[in-house]
């Protein structure tokens, strides 16, 4: 479903991603862990081209992301239109929710289907109501984001991403901005998605979640993937000394 080959990315002189390669199968849940500044969020943002990559090649569901390969092997920028279409099939959930504050919860969830997919309003509304019910917020449809708790906002944000009926969901530290008592309700929603067979890449510091839900756990440090293995392996016998050091600090 996702193939990333030798992705490189620099911010000025800072080389934040170094030859990062990762493959995610359909229905797989991959959790990326690592210290802050390891490039894990940047890598996630490259997967839907919110961050343009310097070189390397990424495909999602067989479609090239941002750059397309010519028959002679050269990579060129893909058209904006293709990029927009591709992004509409990749859901993304952000650390800071990023709900649209001028819209109600329902309008937030309807926005993508109406503006991007151009489906009829009545259909978008029915879909949005069903999704809000799915994340347990049917009664908050008319609330504005400021009237919701962090956990509720994040659940609306998940519903908003799902409204585009994505093939893949990307989660960028979805619980890091939440009060501890609100983390559980958001993780529950993500776990439900995993059970439904959604393909997901999750950047998180929630090790319990990784252990329980992940098919694979990827450890990143200083812009490289150092380890890519099962949760059992990484938590019981981490292969790399940096992984061991990192886990000992946070577990």
């Amino acid at each position: 479903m996702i193939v990333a080959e030798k992705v490189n990315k620099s911010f000025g002189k800072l080389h934040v991603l170094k030859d990062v390669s990762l493959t995610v199968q359909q229905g797989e849940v991959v959790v990326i862990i690592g210290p802050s500044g390891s490039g894990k969020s940047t890598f996630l943002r490259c997967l839907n081209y919110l961050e343009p990559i310097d070189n390397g090649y990424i495909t999602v569901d067989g479609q090239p992301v941002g750059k397309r390969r010519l028959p002679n092997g050269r990579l060129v920028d893909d058209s904006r239109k293709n990029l927009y279409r591709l992004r509409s099939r990749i859901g993304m959930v952000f650390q800071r929710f990023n709900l649209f504050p001028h819209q109600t919860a329902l309008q937030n969830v309807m926005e993508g289907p109406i503006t991007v997919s151009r489906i009829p309003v009545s259909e978008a509304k029915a879909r949005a109501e069903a999704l809000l019910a799915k994340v347990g917020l049917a009664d908050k449809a008319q609330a504005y984001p400021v009237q919701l708790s962090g956990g509720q906002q994040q659940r609306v944000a998940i519903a908003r991403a799902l409204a585009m009926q994505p093939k893949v969901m990307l989660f960028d530290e979805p619980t890091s901005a939440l009060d501890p008592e609100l983390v559980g309700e958001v993780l529950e929603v993500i776990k439900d998605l995993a059970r439904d067979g959604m393909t997901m890449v999750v950047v998180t510091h929630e090790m319990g979640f990784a252990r329980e839900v992940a098919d694979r756990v990827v450890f990143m440090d200083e812009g490289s993937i150092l380890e890519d293995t099962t949760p059992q392996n990484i938590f019981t016998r981490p292969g790399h000394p940096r992984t061991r050091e990192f886990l000992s600090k946070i577990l």
Partner: protein
Amino acid sequence: MRFGPIDVEFILGILPFLFKGALITIELTVQAIVFGTFIGLFVALMKISRFKVLSILGGFYTWVIRGIPLLVQLFILYYGLPHIGIQLSPKAAAVMGLSICGGAYIAEIIRAGIQSIEKGQMEAALSLGMSYAQAMRRVILPQAYRRLLPPMGNEFIALMKDTSLVSVITMVELMRSGILLNTTYFRPMEIYITVGVVYLIMTTFFIYLISLLEKRLAISDGE
């Protein structure tokens, strides 16, 4: 009836003439606001464009227009242009000068407003598959324009007062009406105080309108 140097009957006598001028002032202001806002939005989008040429052009525009006094710009438009064969009516020169100048200030206000919206809003919109234009129209501008209202209100009031400058290019608005009255009656104290009060009434009404608008927008935002 007199209050010190003020002869109330004389003032009542000149009011109809001043009101006619005030109507022209309002007309100029409204036109300058409409055209200036269009120019401002356009220039603001140029300035934040990822295309270097556009952002440099936009920056050049605001730099030049904000750096030259409006009075000089009006002289160029009305007295300068005829020498290269472009003759503008006083009205055309006035509206053009005020819109061009107002547009530069409004562009700065809009740019700051757009850039004050958290970066995550654009990212969330893009991640849904929106184009840059859709994200601007559906997500960024609706949020920006509520924040824009207070500084825009100030700019509109400044524009209304700046219309008095076009009196120097023979446009008969409120200020020039006062000047004309004074050449007839030579009673500058009463005439110019009255002109000032009429301006004050108009700007006050304007401030009131904008505060109403702000309240309505705040309600529709759920806050």
